[in-house]
């Protein structure tokens, strides 16, 4: 039994060892960009499209409540963002002109809480932060990703690309070996996706819960037997920006349903 699995793992790795010119194969063709939804069974696609039954909306509902809830004596989010935040999530991660830092949606929500609401930041992957980020991301449903990668953001894109293209872990695999060079092919029972983040926060069957893109990245790192980075790590936020830049124009889908 062990031997069989060793063979399978071997096949998995040798499949990705195929020599390739890094430049030609590390970029997705613009008219080849496919959301993760494309690689799901029709039943799972239908669940994602069902605005009632998609379990991700349990968090979106809660986010809508939190958005209007005052924090002790401080105003709720809706006071400043009266008109909603349509299209905003499609522009994240984004440079913050004040601090010069790159913020993803979760980081931005927490920065708002700390500076404007004088509250403690929410814990990454807590139900409340997932709820708020899903509520905000859902307002960009169907909007194309359009992140700004000029100016100071460019160096973060490069940092994210480096992480994406660097082999790591016991399996010695980089993200791009699966998600750029071998997408559409089979890995055990799954079809390998292109690894886009447009559906996150997403409801994953494997998690039986909603989860952030960082949770997904941690799972990918663990999957190749590498040490995952902590939630909210600046390198993961840079990877997030690189992924968004790689998928410019792809429609936002949060809360998506994934395997």
């Amino acid at each position, binding site marked *: 039994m062990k031997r069989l699995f060793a063979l399978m793992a071997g096949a998995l790795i040798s499949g990705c060892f195929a020599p390739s010119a890094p430049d030609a194969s590390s970029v997705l063709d613009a008219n080849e960009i496919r959301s993760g939804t494309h690689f799901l069974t029709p039943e799972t696609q239908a669940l994602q499209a069902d605005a009632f*039954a998609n379990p991700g909306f349990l968090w979106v509902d809660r986010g809508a409540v939190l958005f209007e809830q005052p924090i002790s004596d401080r105003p709720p989010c809706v006071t400043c963002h009266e008109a909603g935040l349509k299209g905003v999530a499609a522009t994240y991660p984004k440079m913050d002109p004040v601090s010069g830092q790159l913020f993803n949606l979760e980081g931005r929500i927490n920065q708002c809480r700390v500076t404007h609401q004088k509250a403690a930041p929410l814990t990454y992957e807590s*139900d409340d932060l997932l709820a708020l980020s899903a509520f905000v991301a859902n307002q960009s449903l169907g909007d194309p990703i359009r992140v700004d990668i000029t100016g100071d953001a460019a160096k973060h894109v490069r940092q994210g690309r480096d992480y994406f293209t660097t082999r790591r872990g016991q399996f010695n695999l980089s993200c791009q070996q699966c998600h750029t060079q071998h997408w559409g092919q089979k890995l055990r029972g799954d079809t390998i996706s292109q690894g886009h983040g447009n559906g996150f926060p997403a409801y994953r069957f494997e998690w039986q819960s909603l989860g952030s893109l960082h949770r997904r990245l941690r799972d990918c790192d663990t999957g190749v037997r590498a040490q995952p980075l902590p939630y909210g790590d600046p390198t993961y936020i840079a990877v997030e920006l690189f992924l968004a830049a790689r998928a410019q124009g792809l429609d936002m889908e949060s809360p998506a349903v994934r395997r």
Partner: protein
Amino acid sequence: MAGIRLAVPSPVHQGEIIEIKALIQHAMESGFRRGARGEVIERNILTRFECDLNGTLVFAADLHPGVAANPLITFHLKAMEPGTLTFTWTDQHGEIWQDSAALKIT
């Protein structure tokens, strides 16, 4: 946090058979999973779902660990009288979650 979502078509014609959906946030922890350190994660599931119309039971379900997390239950009802539909979930410890929706008949 236990969010609940209910889908009850309304208004409906008398005698129409309608589809009702109820979704609740619950981990439905099976008791068969293990945590990162190999410890068994204790079972924690909803065991019963009931739907009443004006106090009369019209549909129920017994749930076991084989039901997926955040259970979605879909069932049918013949709309004969208007009133209030009450949805009740009970977990293994007897804790109860409840929500209701109006059934309007034209």
